[in-house]
C-alpha cells in the first residue's frame, strides 16, 4: 500500500436502529487501484460505499477519503469524487447534453459535455430525451455524469446490474479505460467475472464484515477447492496403467476411457506430468481444459452463501 492511500477505513461501523449493517471493517485503497467490494445483497457494501461518498453518517470508526472526513467535509468531498449509483433516474424530458451541462454546473471544476458524450458514445443521442434512452445508454449517461467533474476517485455501485451481457461488456470496457487513466475506482458488484476482470484487489464482505481481502488470484489461491484438469484423447487410456500424478487428489476415467479428469492442488505441475505421460504412451491429445477455483468458489467457501443470495 502506498504511503498516503486515497481511502483509509478503520473499524468502520454503521447501525440502523438495532441492525448492525457494518461491523467494524478496515481497508485501504491506493491511488490508481480498482478496488472491489464483493458481497451478496444486504452484506453491507452499499452502506460502506455510501458512508465513503458522504451520503450517510457512520456510527463508529474512522474514514478518510482523499484526505477528507466524509461526515464533516462532505461538500468538499462530493466536489472531488464521481459517483454512479444503483437505480437513479433523471427527469423524463431532460435531454442528454442538458443533463451533463446541468450536473457540470454543480461542481467547481467540470469538463466539456461534448468531450464526454463523444467518449461515452452518446454524441448521437445528445438531443434525445432521457425517457427515450435504452438501459445501456442510461447507464453510459450515468457514467458520464460520474465523470463530469473529472474526478480522480470514482465510486461505482453495481454499475452493470440488470444490464444485458453485451452492454455489461461495454461498461467493463469503459471501467478499464478509467483504470488505464490511473483513476482510483471503488466498485461494488455481485458479478464475479466483473470483479475478476476489473479489480486489482477485492474485499469479500458478508454480514457487515470483511471475510477476505487480496488480489483475485491471491483469494483464488487461498481456496481449499482443487483445480480441475480435463483431458480428452483420441484413443482409450488404460485405467490400470494410470500413474499417481504429483499433487493430484483424485483421477477419474470415463467409461470409454477417452476422458480423464484429475483434481490437483498444483495444477501446472500435474498438467505437465500428464502431458509427459501421454506423450510416452503415444496417445493422441484432442483437448485439454484447466479450471481453477473462481472467486465465487472462494466466496461460497468463506460465507456458505452464493453471491446472488
Amino acid at each position, binding site marked *: 500500500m502506498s504511503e498516503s492511500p486515497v481511502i483509509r477505513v478503520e473499524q468502520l461501523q454503521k447501525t440502523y436502529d438495532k441492525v448492525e449493517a457494518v461491523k467494524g471493517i478496515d481497508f485501504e485503497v491506493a491511488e490508481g487501484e480498482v478496488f472491489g467490494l464483493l458481497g451478496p445483497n444486504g452484506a453491507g457494501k452499499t452502506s460502506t460505499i455510501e458512508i465513503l*461518498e458522504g*451520503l450517510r453518517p457512520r456510527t463508529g470508526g474512522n474514514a478518510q477519503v482523499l484526505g477528507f472526513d466524509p461526515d464533516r467535509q462532505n*461538500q*468538499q468531498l*462530493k*466536489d472531488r469524487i464521481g*459517483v454512479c*449509483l444503483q*437505480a*437513479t*433516474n*433523471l*427527469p423524463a*424530458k*431532460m435531454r442528454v447534453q*442538458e443533463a451533463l*451541462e*446541468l*450536473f457540470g*454546473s*454543480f*461542481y*467547481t471544476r467540470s469538463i466539456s459535455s461534448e468531450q464526454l458524450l463523444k467518449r461515452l458514445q452518446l454524441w448521437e443521442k445528445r438531443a434525445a430525451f432521457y425517457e427515450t434512452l435504452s438501459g445501456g445508454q442510461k447507464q453510459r449517461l450515468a457514467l458520464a*455524469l460520474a465523470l463530469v467533474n473529472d474526478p480522480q476517485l470514482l465510486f461505482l455501485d453495481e454499475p452493470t446490474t440488470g444490464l444485458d451481457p453485451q452492454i455489461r461488456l461495454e461498461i467493463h470496457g469503459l471501467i478499464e479505460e478509467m483504470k488505464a487513466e490511473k483513476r482510483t475506482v471503488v466498485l461494488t458488484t455481485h458479478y464475479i467475472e466483473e470483479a475478476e476482470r476489473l479489480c486489482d484487489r477485492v474485499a469479500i464482505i458478508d454480514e457487515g464484515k470483511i471475510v477476505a481481502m487480496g488480489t483475485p488470484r491471491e483469494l483464488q489461491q487461498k481456496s481449499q477447492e482443487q483445480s480441475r484438469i480435463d483431458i480428452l484423447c483420441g484413443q482409450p487410456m488404460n485405467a490400470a496403467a494410470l500413474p499417481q500424478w504429483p499433487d493430484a487428489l483424485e483421477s477419474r476415467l470415463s467409461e470409454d476411457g477417452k476422458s480423464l479428469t484429475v483434481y490437483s492442488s498444483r495444477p501446472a505441475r500435474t498438467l505437465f506430468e500428464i502431458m509427459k505421460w501421454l506423450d510416452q504412451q503415444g496417445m493422441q491429445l484432442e483437448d485439454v481444459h484447466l479450471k481453477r477455483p473462481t472467486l465465487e468458489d472462494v466466496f461460497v467457501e468463506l460465507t456458505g452463501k452464493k453471491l446472488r443470495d
Partner: protein
Amino acid sequence: MKQYLAIIAMDIKLALRLRAVIFFNFLFPLIFFFTFATVLRGEPGAMTFVVTMSVTLGVLGSGFFGAGIRAIQEREMNILRRYRVTPITPAPLLVGSMVTGWVIFLPYIVLLLLMAHFLYHMPLPSHFFQLLLFISLGLIAFRSLGLVIASVANTMQEGTILVQLFYFPMLLLSGATFPAEKFPRVMRIIHNFVPATYLVQGMQNIMVKGQGLMEKQNLAAAGVMVLTIVGGMLISMKLFRWEKEEKIRGSAKLWVFAVLAPFFAMGIWKWFQT
C-alpha cells in the same frame, strides 16, 4: 449562484415540456375563465369574480400540484438521489421550484387580465403592478406550502391525500368559487382560517375597491404570505429528503400547521374583529 441559475433554467425548460404543467397551469384555469366569463357576462362585478377564481385555481394548482406533487415524484423516481451525490444542497432545488413556478405563471396572469379587459370589458386595475406583486407573493407562498407537504409526505399516496385535504377546502371555502358573503355564519368563521381567503380578498380589494398594496388589510395579507414563504423554505430545507427510503415520522406532518400558523393568526384576528 451558478447552481441556482442552472437549476432554474433547467426547471423552466422541463416545466414547459410537460403536458400536465401546461394543462394545470394554463388550460384548466382558462377553461374555467372562458366558461364562467361567458355564462356571467354582463352581470355587475362578474368579471373580477371570474378573474379571481381563475387566478386562485392557477395559484393553488401551481402550489400543490406543480410544486408539491412534482417534488414527491422526483423523490419517488430516484431523481433526487442522483442530485444527492453532487455538491448541491436542497436550497437551489427549492428556490428553483419557487422561481420556475413564478416565471411560468406570471405571463398567464397578465394574459388573463388583458383578456378580461379586451374581451369582456373589465376595467384594468388601477394598481396593476401591485396586483401582480400581490399575486406573485401568493403564488410563491402556496408553492412553499406545496413543498412543505412534499417534505412531510412519505409516499405519493400520502402526498396526494394531503394535497387534496388542502386544495379542495381552499378552493371551496376561500370565496374563490362561491362568494363568501353568501356563506352561513359557521362557514364564514372557517373561511377566515382558510389561507387562500387572503389571496382572494387581497385580489378583490385591489381590483374592485381600487386599493393599493399598502392598505392595512392587504399589507397584513402580504406580510402573512411573506412569513409563509420564509417559514415554508426553512421547514422544507430542514425536512428535505433525497430518497424515498428515508421515511419521516408521522408527527412531522404537524410542520404543515407550523407553516400555516400566520394564516391561523390572521383567522383569529378576523374572528375577534367580527
